[in-house]
């Protein structure tokens, strides 16, 4: 049984571009579970593996459940040089989860990422589509409060 939201998304992606479809499904807070990917594969007329190989390739798509708010904090060299490690620790402490995990209430998931091109405001992170820069451990609680 195809989820109604998924059906609507499929209806306006007539060209069947799987990247755009999967992104939109995920943006609508539907996890890319095996069942959802099966439904998409059937509707588009491709195999399950065709869908899975895309969902598992791109870092903004996830085959694991993700939080309502997705935190992506940069761990690349320019942010590392500005002590992103202590900011990462502060997020772990504030949320009680490690990178790659999701909070019990599913409000947050938290991922380490490679360079997000925000080196001029390092250390930097993205929460959903918003960027935060010049981070310090002291700023984390207040930023995350906006999303709680």
């Amino acid at each position, binding site marked *: 049984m195809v989820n109604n939201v998924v059906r609507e998304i499929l209806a306006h992606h007539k*060209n*069947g*571009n*799987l*990247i*755009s479809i*999967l*992104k939109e499904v995920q943006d609508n807070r539907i996890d890319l579970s095996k069942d959802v990917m099966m439904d998409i594969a059937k509707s588009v007329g491709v195999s399950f593996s065709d869908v899975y*190989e*895309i969902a598992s*390739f*791109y*870092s*903004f*798509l996830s085959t694991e459940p993700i939080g309502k708010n997705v935190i*992506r904090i940069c761990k*690349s*060299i*320019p942010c*590392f*040089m500005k002590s992103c490690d202590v900011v990462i620790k502060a997020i772990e402490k504030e949320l009680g989860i490690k990178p790659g995990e999701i909070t019990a209430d599913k409000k947050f998931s938290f991922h380490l*990422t*490679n*360079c*997000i*091109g*925000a*080196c*001029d405001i*390092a250390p930097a992170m*993205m929460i959903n*589509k*918003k*960027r935060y820069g010049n981070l310090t451990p002291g700023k984390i609680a207040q930023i995350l409060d906006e999303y709680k």
Partner: protein
Amino acid sequence: MPEKRVVLKNCGIVNPISLKSYIENDGFKALENAIKMTPTDVIEEIKRSGLRGRGGAGFPTGIKWEMTNKSVSDEKYVICNADEGEVGTFKDRYMIENDPFSLIEGVTIACYAVGAKKAYIYLRAEYNFLIGVLQNAIDQSSEYLKKADVEIEIFEGAGAYICGEESALIESIEGKRGEVRYRPPFPPTEGLWKKPTVIDNVETLMNIPRIMTEGADWFSNMGTDRSKGTKVFSICGDVEKVGVYELVMGSPLRELVEGLAQAKDVKMVQIGGASGRIVPYGNIDTPLSFETVLGAGGVMVFNSTRDVIEIVRMNAEFFEEESCGKCFPCREGTKRMLEIITRFAEHRAKPRDIKALEDLSETMMLSSLCGLGQAAPNSLMDTLKYYLSEYEMRIR
């Protein structure tokens, strides 16, 4: 040579959300000039300017356009590569944020020159916050796009460094995994949906309106023999003034690092992101050009407190995560490289590990399918050359 703002001339001057402001600063004059000329004459002008691709590879832009123009097909495409993913690089982001109209004008002229009616701007997922300013520029420019019979669509990436490689990027727009293609055929003969395609970097396309306003001679008067015009750099790391700067090609690295960015106590500089070359402080007067060292324009500065091996290890980790996995020299090579360099980082390397790294690097450079695997060993090879003792003291 001080900073020279050619590509950046509108940044901080033109209001990025106002077409009117762009027009007041000579906006769309270049397009008006171009559409009075034949496409072949436009291409000739770009060829004469000596403009080369700013994404790192430095292919002559005019020749790429000419090849695409001459390919016989009912459909052709122009793609703007805005998948700026090289570590420490943010100049394309800065230019899109501050002057999206120049990019739109450059894309439109490219379409007119090669005979494409449709263009895509492939924007990396991490830059999705720029969609608003970019889409606004496209919408406000609709009258000009119509004049050239061009439609521009933004395609948002989904997070993959490899998609900055042109053939992987094309796969991604087609909705597939971003895996590189075997070449030939190259995009000018067979690109997006197997149609002739021009794919150019943001900065390359932003040079186009300048050349079509001021002329090829003006442009080719700047720079060195084989590197014409200017180059935009983003600089970060151990510097006082992080930022985006533009210099005439051939300017010494010192001007950027110690002059504009005011770095002190410099140990080494990496030019071109994780895949870039390492320049030790002793070579700080190296000119920045295609003939010497350039890359895509991301510059990272390291002072004397930084650990060379840790920097190389982080570069190796980056490539191990970002390899697309299609060809085994890169898929396996990046993994083994990280394994061995980690032994150095943890002071438990074996005497044969230096030779192993050299052999592995050579194999990857010679046999990887694309630039990712070919360039992944760069910082390793350069540091083995300049900082061998730092490796040797970690052998047990």
